[in-house]
């Protein structure tokens, strides 16, 4: 289990993702699977920093990741008020296609096997099976 409580700084996310990639490679995950997991986790962390903690420097993001040769589970929890993911506009709708943001959740949903928010909407768990 890799667990980090990181400040709301997107640059730190990149370093954490490298640790994740190293762990996935050690367990023999394929390049395309690693891409998907990294994409889902990075988008989740960036969402937590920007939308959850609103980039507030005194708020943290808790990142928990568990990986082995068969499964990956990652949980990202911010200190924000949470939100209702059902109310996020679908970025693949015609009228939203050219919007410059709002694709993070769609990418997580597509690259992960499962994604689940807690009831508050400030903690997201992502699962991927090899």
């Amino acid at each position, binding site marked *: 289990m890799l667990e980090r409580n990181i400040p709301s700084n*997107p*640059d730190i*996310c*990149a370093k954490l*993702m490298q640790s994740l990639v190293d762990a996935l490679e050690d367990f023999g995950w394929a*390049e*395309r699977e690693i*891409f*998907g997991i*990294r*994409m889902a986790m*990075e*988008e989740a962390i*960036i969402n937590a920093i920007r939308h959850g903690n609103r980039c507030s420097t005194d708020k943290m993001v808790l990142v928990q990741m568990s990986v082995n040769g068969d499964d990956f589970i990652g949980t990202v929890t911010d200190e924000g008020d949470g939100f209702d993911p059902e109310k996020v506009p679908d*970025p*693949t709708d015609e009228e939203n*296609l*050219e*919007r*410059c*943001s709002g*694709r*993070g959740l*769609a*990418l997580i949903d*597509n*690259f992960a096997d499962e994604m689940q928010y807690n009831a508050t909407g400030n903690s997201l768990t992502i699962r991927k099976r090899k």
Partner: protein
Amino acid sequence: MDQYECIETDTVEDVSVVKFVDERMMDAARIEQLGSELMDAISGDDNDRVVINFENVSFFSSAAVSKLLVAEKRIRSQGGQLRLSNLRPEVRDVFSLTKLDSVFRIEDEQTTAIKTLQ
């Protein structure tokens, strides 16, 4: 801005070709810089036909995609056309899963992309 850190620019058969320097588009500050350099590189009357070649890119986040969308709108507003080429399958997934392959025209190879702009 003549010297770029995040992109390399070239002209092939009168078409502007942009390549990314970074293999992984992850760092937030770097993505911001990429956006600025991209906008600078595509501005001007000589840049109405542009190919962005992804051959060096193994990871492309949604934040980086947003920079491409801004660039595409700028090129279109100048009456120009943009093509993307040489995307790895997983990077192409980022565009297809979000239906952005209907906004960007994607070609397998740079040479094909240039031909479609002749």
